[in-house]
């Protein structure tokens, strides 16, 4: 007597197909969550004013810290207040239509609303100052800002990407290609050639509470 019905003959094929599909699905999910698609590399939203880093930081050669003043002393580099724009644009391009929102903000006191590009999750407590004073240049995380007409996200800013650098620096100290002299942190053209003397012993955390708390 037949214990199993005939229809079950197809079971191995069904199981096989499901397993294959499942495997493909899992592979896809892993591929997706590690891909730049998920980490939004290349994200480049339109800003209320088409501020050009290529022009200001590249061509005109403004230092990053002219606007991002707190980068060496605070967790946040800080997007500058309208006041900083008006320092120059009271005199330069005073009738540019593109700058109208800036002038409106200055006149009304209503702040500008820029779109955040480099966003870390809220449970990550990233601190700009500790990186910059260790000799990690702006370019390490933000790329060639001086060549960007519209800022785009250049690096994945994922935990694995952070740790790659932390581990490399911990092991190689000043030999790590991520470390440069503190005086060169905003220099976009600087090239790592030979050992750099870091300002202090570099001990980037690799434990959870180094960044999450």
């Amino acid at each position, binding site marked *: 007597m037949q214990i199993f019905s005939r229809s079950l003959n197809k079971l191995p094929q069904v199981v096989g197909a499901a397993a294959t599909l499942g495997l493909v699905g899992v592979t896809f999910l892993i591929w997706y969550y590690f891909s730049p698609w998920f980490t939004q590399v290349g994200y480049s939203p339109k800003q209320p004013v088409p501020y050009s880093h290529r022009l200001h930081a590249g061509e005109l050669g403004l230092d990053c810290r002219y606007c991002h003043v707190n980068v060496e002393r605070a967790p*946040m580099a*800080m997007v500058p*207040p309208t006041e900083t724009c008006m320092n120059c644009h009271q005199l330069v391009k005073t009738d540019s239509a593109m700058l109208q929102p800036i002038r409106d903000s200055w006149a009304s006191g209503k702040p500008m609303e820029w779109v955040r590009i480099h966003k870390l999750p809220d449970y990550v407590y990233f601190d700009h100052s500790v990186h910059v004073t260790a000799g990690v240049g702006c370019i390490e995380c933000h790329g060639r800002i001086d060549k960007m007409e519209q800022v785009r996200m250049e690096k994945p800013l994922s935990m694995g990407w952070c740790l790659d650098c932390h581990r490399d620096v911990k092991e190689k100290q000043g030999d790590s290609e991520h470390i440069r002299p503190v005086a060169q942190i905003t220099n976009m053209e600087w090239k790592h050639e030979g050992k750099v003397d870091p300002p202090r012993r570099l001990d980037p955390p690799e434990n959870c509470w180094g960044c999450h708390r």
Partner: protein
Amino acid sequence: MSKRAPNPARPAAIDAAPEFPKGHVDTPPSEEALLLSRRGLLGAMAATFAVVGAEGCRRPIEKIVPYTKMPEDVIPGVPSHYATVMQRRGDAIGLVVESHEGRPTKIEGNEAHPSSLGAVDLIGQASILELYDPDRSTTPRKGGAPASWDDFEHELGAKLGTFDKDQGAKLRVLMPPSISPTVLRMRDALAQRFPKARVHTWSAVADSNARMGAKAALGEPLNTLYAYEKARVILALDSDFLQTESGSVRANKALAAGRRLRSAKDAMSRLYVVEPARTATGDTADHRLRLAAGDIAGYAFALAGELAKSGVAIDAQGSAAKAAASAKVPPKWLTAVAKDLAQNRGHAIVMVGSRQPPEVHALAHAIHAALGSVGTVVNYAAVADPAELDVATDLKALTDAIAAKQVETLVILGGNPVYDAPADLAFPEKLASVPLSVHASLSFDETSEKCSWHVPRAHEYESWGDAQALDGTVSVQQPLIAPLYDGRSDIELLAFMAGPRAPQKAPLDAVRATAQALILAGHGLSGCAPFDERGDAECKDATGNPAGAHEYELDRDWNRALAMGVVHRPQGPKAASLVPNGVAQAIDARKVGPKGSGAFEVTFAPCPKMVDGRYANNTWLLELPDGATKLVWDNAALLSPESAKQLGVEKGDFVKIAAGDRSVTAAVWVVPGQADGSIALTLGWGRKKAGRVGNDHGFDAYPLRATDALGFVSGVTVTKTGDEQYFFAQTQEHSSSENRPIAHQATLAEYRVKPNFAELDGPPPRALPLWSQADYGEAPVKDAHAPSGHQWGMTVDLNACTGCNACVIACMAENNVPVVGKREVWRGREMHWLRIDRYYADRAEFGASADDPAVINEPVMCVHCEEAPCENVCPVNATTHGPEGLNEMAYNRCIGTRYCANNCPYKVRRFNYLNWHNDAVFKDTGGLPETLQMQQNPNVTVRFRGVMEKCSYCVQRIQSSKIKAKRELRELKDGEIRTACQQTCPADAIVFGDVNSESSAVTRLTRLDRRFGLLAELGTRPRTTYLGKVRNTNPEMA
């Protein structure tokens, strides 16, 4: 899935219209194209799916909103700290408030202020939540209906205008006792405009008895300052000077300093406490006598007689002998205590609590004079307001005037007299008969409801003011934030009422003028003319000669005063001596309180949490376990086991307590250590109009309180009602450690013989460490495996801890710890990262018995085991061991198995069964109010449902200090990182630091002979080390 408080500089996600970035999706084909072919249709479908997919995966678009014009000195992400001051009963506590981009979040003590010395009590810590109370009043109200400030000013101004004719004979003002020089100046200005108007003073919790006692003994009401650190013997008569009395923060600091043991050779002071109900002071005592409040005066008088026998001749000896009654006191409490006091002449203190009548306070002054303690351990200072004497008499004068129809307008500035006035005055009914009554208060409360006008009052943290501490130090109260709800301060309201007579209108100008006079006086200048255009002014110096003053110097001193938090320090203590025969007269003229026919007495004490009811809507305080009972969200009628047996009641039963025609029904809680025949009821509970969470918790004691029995009432009758038992929730149901070695203690004599009693009393290790580990308790750390770098550790000195609970609230404020509500606490789901365990010991050596146990308090938080049982069982590595010895918790990895909590022998791990912030006490009112979100610390993740959490040794403080040191290219200094509990501890019981450094304070303490590791026999190797408690018992008391 965690989220943080909205931060103005890093705003929470603002959901804008979904926008997909260029380069990800092609522009969809036009409509005509779609209709063209099947191919086009398929393409359109694919594009649609791509759009849907892109939208679904897209993270919300977040905006960065910078300032338009950057305020000076603000660095987004870096908190600022401002010095200010808060009034606590008769004392002012100097504070330093942490502010994130203009949003005050955390209160700390001001080290430069003599009443704080860097510490704050639990009320100070919780006061930040009062500022953000979502139920604060937002608008003036006339008869309950919203009105405008203009309407109010118009109506009151017109009414006051009619009073100018008769000099304000029908105007009365009622306010709590003030210690603000500027408020008192404005009050004087009001008196200038209306000489016949009267300002009455009332507060349910005041120092009237102490003031009247000082006036009788010394001729004027003076503050008494005690130098506990220099005292050798302290006798506290019904005085909870470590928790609820004025000046408790400094008292904790000083007492702990006088009892600090660094080796078995050190000396420590001895503390005797005589009290009816358990308090933090009684729990700290070396010898404690439970005695009904009504018998304490008799004991004091008998003790005075006993002192005479020891050769200490007290003024008023005869009167004391007549009044003495000592039948209920064990004889050694007279002979041995008197002998101890007499043997420590010049270093003995006798404290009397504010509940005891004035003549007992007067007697204490006489005892101090006779013992030669004045000038050494007892000093005097002038009070801020000498006119404030007895608040009950003052309030009675007001109600009598209302009854006699002499009051047309009554302005009540602060306080809540409808709720807390003595029942015999029938204040609510009388208030209703006043034609125009105004109540300025933080919220629309019981009193506001009964007044014709209510106006919102500005909080201490949002208005200018000043305050004078017990010792005479004056500090400026700086606003930390603009008034959230359009409230106005007492100074503004009094200035408005004083009209043209007000010396300044704006509160800042008024406070500045007060400070300037003090600053000039500090330079020896007085009688200054106004500054001229060049900033010069003509003053007189101490000898009366003309002297110049310059405005810029004053500005400099003012700015320095604001930064330091201290404007003026007194030159030294005020000299005072006994008025001849004053004490004797006070004793002879004493009024014995009313005594009914019943067998019980009821004592009223300010609740350590609610104070007089002011903090009833404060969720942190509501959920704080009471020090004596560990009850949360309630008070109870506390009975001794003997009294409970006598009445035939048990925990939860209702009793009706009646004194004459006044009565209260309350549920019973049985507490060992309570005096037999005495029932303790704390004030401040049972509010009806406190706010969305504060109503109807506990039992209101005020209906039982009368003007002649504010402290306690004797002869009350107590009957069991037979109602269904009340539901109480407690955080610690077990009181005995069942002889398990958890909290070690010994007498001083035992300690001297066996200095390392705490380790020796513990059991031998039951499990050996899995691998070789450094022992930070041994010097020096020799182990080859000893890790390098910082190794964080902590010590908790049980000899200093009084169980005051300030650390518990400090931890909640710093770490965004949620409140879960009474029922969830009852289920054992409270979230406190730091709890205070209390254990009873009935060892005869401590003079204790089962009904009157010796109490030991033990703060317990995560001890950061080097071999942590929690880490081994986590299936997802959410809790791991950091390189600096911290047991780390990654919330985002946690999947909520709760294995770690089950495997933790200390039970310090807390699980978010729900999204507590929104779904617990605020569930029915729309979640955590926005204002309370403003309090949250932006540097700590707000945990969501389903994750485990626990003490982190305040890792956010460790990290920010480490980053600061790295930025400045230097090593961390010892003491630079202080945990929230350590920083606020008024007794300096908690010390945190690097146990791998030979020079750190924590290393020295870790190696003290009294050290022990909590449950160290399990092989967990805790990083937190406890130091055993030592009781300085008197051999003659045995």
